[in-house]
């Protein structure tokens, strides 16, 4: 009995062992197989590449986002708890007082004034940024095209002069400009205190960093194939027609890039708005941002209205920490529309760049 049993077991075991051995052999074979080896190597490489890429991207995103989070967390604190040493990230006392004060400081929606359009700095900034963006696109595209494709005497010199303006900081020319602008009107138009002066400067190619846009457009038009232009010319198109119906539609990527930057830089601009004294005639968000001395009156009106948020401390508006906090919050508020807008434009923005690859 017992012997038989053992034999059966051995018989059962043998194929199992064989199977195991076969499996092992096939495994070794496939392990040694050169093509499979290559595929495996590629896969592990891909995996580690993805891992490293993910780690680097997460780290860099962290580095970018950390200061912004710090600022947001500071902005959400109650002003009375600014110097609480125990707070690291999460405020001990949440409040939106800072945002309310910053809102009034920026004059985003000033309801007290009679005429609406001139007092809502948000609306003003949107108008100014949009219009200058459109004007900048047209003016710099025309100039860039002319530098890239239309050969005339002095073409190169003028282009290098334009590039030279990039290197000269605005501060250098500030006093000379400050003396020049009110004293010598531009074609009879006094640019200082004029609502349209930013548009005029943009139209004449002297907007915010127009030189960079001209450079970009020139590079872009230079890279477009010459055959495009020649075929248009053979078909009897003039210079303007060639530019407008052939070259410009192909420059969509450059147009979108320039438009985005023109908008953002105009939104953030501070120098031009102050030089042309927009702060009084047409207040913008950026001109109000620096004016922290208005805090006193704002807080006094708050107190007069009987709001009890900041009671207890007499001269809170003089406290440099409080001022810093409000400036910080106001900067965040000013950025918010741009960020929201960017999240929506972003996809379209990248796609339009992709579409321009006409070379392929």
């Amino acid at each position, binding site marked *: 009995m017992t012997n038989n049993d053992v034999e059966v077991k051995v018989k059962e075991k043998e194929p199992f062992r064989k199977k195991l051995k076969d499996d092992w052999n096939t495994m070794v074979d496939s392990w040694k197989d050169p093509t499979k080896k290559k595929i495996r190597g590629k896969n592990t490489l891909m995996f580690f590449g993805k891992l490293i890429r993910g780690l680097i*991207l997460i780290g860099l995103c962290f580095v970018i986002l950390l200061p912004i989070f710090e*600022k947001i967390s500071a902005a959400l604190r109650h002003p009375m708890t600014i110097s609480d040493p125990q707070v690291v990230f999460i405020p001990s006392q949440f409040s939106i007082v800072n945002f309310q004060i910053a809102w009034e400081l920026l004059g985003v929606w000033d309801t007290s004034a009679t005429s609406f359009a001139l007092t809502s700095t948000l609306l003003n900034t949107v108008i100014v940024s949009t219009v200058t963006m459109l004007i900048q696109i047209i003016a710099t595209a025309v100039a860039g095209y002319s530098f890239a494709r239309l050969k005339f005497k002095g073409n190169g010199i003028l282009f290098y002069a334009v590039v030279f303006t990039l290197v000269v900081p605005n501060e250098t020319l500030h006093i000379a400009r400050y003396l020049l602008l009110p004293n010598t009107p531009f074609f009879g138009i006094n640019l200082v205190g004029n609502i349209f002066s930013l548009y005029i400067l943009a139209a004449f190619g002297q907007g915010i960093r127009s030189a960079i846009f001209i450079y970009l457009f020139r590079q872009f038009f230079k890279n477009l194939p010459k055959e495009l232009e020649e075929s248009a010319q053979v078909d009897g198109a003039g210079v303007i027609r060639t530019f407008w119906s052939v070259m410009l539609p192909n420059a969509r990527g450059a147009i979108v890039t320039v438009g985005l930057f023109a908008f953002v830089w105009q939104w953030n601009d501070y120098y031009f708005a102050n030089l042309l004294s927009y702060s009084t005639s047409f207040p913008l968000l950026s001109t109000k*941002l620096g004016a922290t001395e208005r805090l006193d009156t704002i807080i006094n009106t708050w107190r007069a209205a009987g709001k009890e948020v900041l009671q207890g401390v007499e001269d809170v508006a003089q406290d440099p920490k409080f001022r810093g906090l409000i400036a910080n919050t106001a900067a965040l508020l000013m950025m918010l529309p741009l960020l929201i807008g960017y999240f929506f434009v972003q996809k379209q923005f990248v796609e339009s760049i992709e579409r321009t690859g006409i070379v392929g």
Partner: protein
Amino acid sequence: MKKIKEFFKKIFSQIGKGLGKVFRPIAKFLKMILSPIGKLLGKIFAPLNRLFGKIKYEKRQAIWGIVFVLPLLIGFIYFFLIPFCTTIVYSFSNVKNLAYNDETKQFLGVVTEWVGFDNYKYIWNEHATFKQTMLSSFGNTLLNIPLVLIFSLIIAVVLNSNFRGRAFVRAVFFMPVIFNSQAIDVAMKAGSIIGEEMEGANQDIFSNMFNFTDFLTNANLPTTAVNFLSNASESIFDIISYSGVQILIFLSGIQSVPKHLYEAAKIEGATQYEIFWKITFPMVSPLMLTAAVYTAVDSLLRSEILTTINTYASAGNVTYAGGLGGLTNYGIHSAMSLMFCLSSILIIAIVLFLLSRLVFYYDE
């Protein structure tokens, strides 16, 4: 998230439709008015046009080129050249404030008194910090250019590949571009008092947890290498915030590389590494010049030397707002800024010369 997106899409499309309804009749009306005027103008200018058509195409191009550039030229002369020449004159003279009305904040003018090269001699020989600051600023710029170029090229390649959360990462990487402005900087500097305080509270935790310099010195690296690496790691945020625009430039360059090149490389069995070095890099290399110029200009315009220069523009911090309160030593300010401009041109020329050897043009 998707629902929110769809909701916003609906709203935006509704707004678009509404705007279209408003603007279409206006456009039609304008067309109705403008088209007869255009026809009339066409009839008036027809002989002129015929005459113009007889001119050679190249000449017509030249004429239109001048017409296209004319507004730029006028603006350039008025808004740049005249102030620039004035600044040159100032740099050779002793500038005194003529009159400044404190109440109206009106600046009436300046008196200039020719002193020759005195201002330049002063800043070069006697000024305490100008030379050192200038050298260190330019050194930083030269260090920044390769770092930013390599970093932004790598990031552009990574952002161009497909992975989960790409849209989010892209959005995050361009955030510094949006946050990058003078007004914001000023406001954030005011807010840095809080930041310092917060750092002071956190210092014990973070600095002990990971001290990069200590780690490197313990690894027996030479001190210069340690300094370089720790500086690079400290300035990583700066590098990121410097390189937003360059990433965009490279991204658009990579995306305009003809797709058939990549397909051919894949069929031939090239690895990703080879594809990068043999296709992407040469095809993107013309954009290196643009990116390098942008980096140089950007980091020069942010360098610390500008603060040294600006202390001479005016006594108080009134360079922008509030006119020109106590104007002092504007001659020295002008001389300094001219020196700065000239040397930055020199640097950019050197960079362009060095980089132009790397560049490969596909068409030619």
